[in-house]
């Protein structure tokens, strides 16, 4: 009787140590690298759609626009048109794919319900956002690199300032990854995402001076270009290849850093409050 009256739990408690909370340090590196790896494997598994398809589309644009807009002889300033067009198209491909990577990842997870898999683990908002953005940047850079290699085989683009190329590539991919993340969190349906792509991302990337210099566009479109972040990163990226710029590089860098900072804060705020993520 005495044996039974003694709580069976106390016996167990004495035998096993009290579970202590896991100490994670300032940054949960394991969590961050795991989510980053998932984000990268996610698109690499379907590389035909995520890497090869955008490269083919970009090359198609390149050949069609090169043929239609004056062929081999046309010059933009003192640069052949083909060299002018190349960097802009590479940047367009990178930007669109960085955006597609984060937005589709978040939206698919939300629609299918497996977003809980990344909300439950001990990931801080910063780790969460960084991992998604890293996935987007890696995809953007891979698409850009492969496109560059292929174009380089046909039309040598030159390399004036490699640092500017890399800096603008990373900054632009980051900006679009953050936009994609924010868009993916905001959207409820695939229709919403398609609307953002059709009505925001595509017009911004077309009206950015990829296909023309600002000298040849009417006054109104100068203004449009200067409030369009795409203009700055295409212009700076192109400067890295051909050493010629439409705007001022310093302004562009300041604009990109500023927009990136704001988008980081918005994304962090969305994740920490659980906006449209935690119902």
């Amino acid at each position, binding site marked *: 009787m005495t044996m039974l009256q003694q709580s069976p739990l106390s016996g167990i408690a004495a035998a096993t140590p009290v579970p202590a909370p896991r100490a994670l340090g300032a940054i949960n590196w394991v969590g961050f690298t795991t989510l980053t790896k998932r984000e990268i494997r996610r698109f690499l598994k379907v590389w035909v759609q995520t890497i090869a398809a955008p490269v083919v589309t970009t090359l*198609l644009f390149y050949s069609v*626009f090169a043929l239609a807009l004056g062929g081999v002889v046309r010059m933009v300033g003192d640069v052949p048109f083909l060299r002018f067009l190349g960097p802009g198209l590479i940047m367009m491909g990178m930007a669109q794919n960085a955006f597609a990577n984060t937005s589709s990842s978040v939206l698919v997870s939300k629609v299918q319900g497996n977003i809980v898999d990344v909300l439950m683990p001990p990931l801080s908002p910063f780790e969460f956002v960084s991992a998604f953005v890293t996935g987007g940047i890696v995809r953007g850079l891979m698409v850009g690199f492969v496109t560059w290699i292929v174009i380089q085989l046909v039309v040598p683009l030159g390399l004036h300032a490699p640092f500017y190329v890399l800096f603008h590539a990373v900054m632009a991919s980051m900006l679009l990854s953050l936009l994609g993340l924010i868009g993916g969190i905001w959207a409820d349906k695939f229709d919403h995402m398609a609307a953002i792509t059709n009505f925001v991302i595509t017009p911004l990337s077309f009206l950015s001076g990829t296909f023309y210099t600002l000298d040849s566009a009417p006054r109104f479109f100068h203004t449009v270009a200067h409030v369009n972040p795409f203009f700055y990163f295409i212009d700076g990226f192109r400067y890295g290849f051909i050493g010629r710029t439409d705007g001022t590089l310093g302004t562009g860098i300041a604009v990109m850093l500023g927009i990136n900072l704001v988008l980081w804060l918005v994304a962090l705020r969305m994740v920490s409050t659980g906006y449209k993520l935690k119902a």
Partner: protein
Amino acid sequence: MDMPATGLGAETPLPAGAYRPDRRRHHRRFNTLGFLTLLGREIKRLRKLAMLFLVAPGLSAALYFTVFSFGLGDKRGTPEGDAILAFLVPGLVTLSLLTQSVQIPSFSILYAKMEGAILDQLMAPVGAAEMLAAYVLSAMAAGVASGAAVWVGFLIFWQAPMADPALVLLFVVLGSSMMATFGVLTGLISVKWDHLSAAMTFVFTPLIFLSGLFAPVAGMPGMLRAIVQANPIYYAIDGVRIGFLGQGQDQAALAVLVLVAVNVALLAIAGTLLHRGYRLRN
């Protein structure tokens, strides 16, 4: 109480069109009611997708147009620049027409297959002819609506008079039915979404873009010109352009011939596959 052995006999009056298990329903070789029902369903589907196939292509055509007119730089405003834009407008209208014609039926068929809803029409007394006609006609309607939206948009800031509306209509019909049948075939062959997007990216987009859409074939290097002229889409785009600009009618006959031949061949293949239930009935 004796029930008639044959179930619901002639004694029980039933409303017209009611299900009579004891009677075999007869319809003619072409089940018009089935065809109209299927067509109606496809058109209803289109109404919900109007945003996708009217607004988005219109916007992208406007973007292409802007980019081209600025990209021409110092050529813009000169007769040469005008000629390039006049060349471009029919091309952009046709781009929208052809892209939507191929996308709409392939998506519809694959979606029905993935969701299992394809059973609804496989069980119904509609055969290959009815199904093919319904899919192709609804896709043509979507393509024509989308092309027309783009053209009306252009009329606002670029007057592109149609020199020969009948010729334009003929090539619009031939081109969109060809692409719609391609779309039906793509939907039948695809098993996953990946297949559909691969077909779009690696087959149809290159075919549509490398068809003299944006640049005259005459200005292309020999090898590329041969490739473009082997592309059936080239003849549809060229035909629409002849109708718009009213130049080069002598080529129209060849274009009609090529398109009719391709259409007949594709319809025959698609009809056979539908009849056999290729990747529909497993």
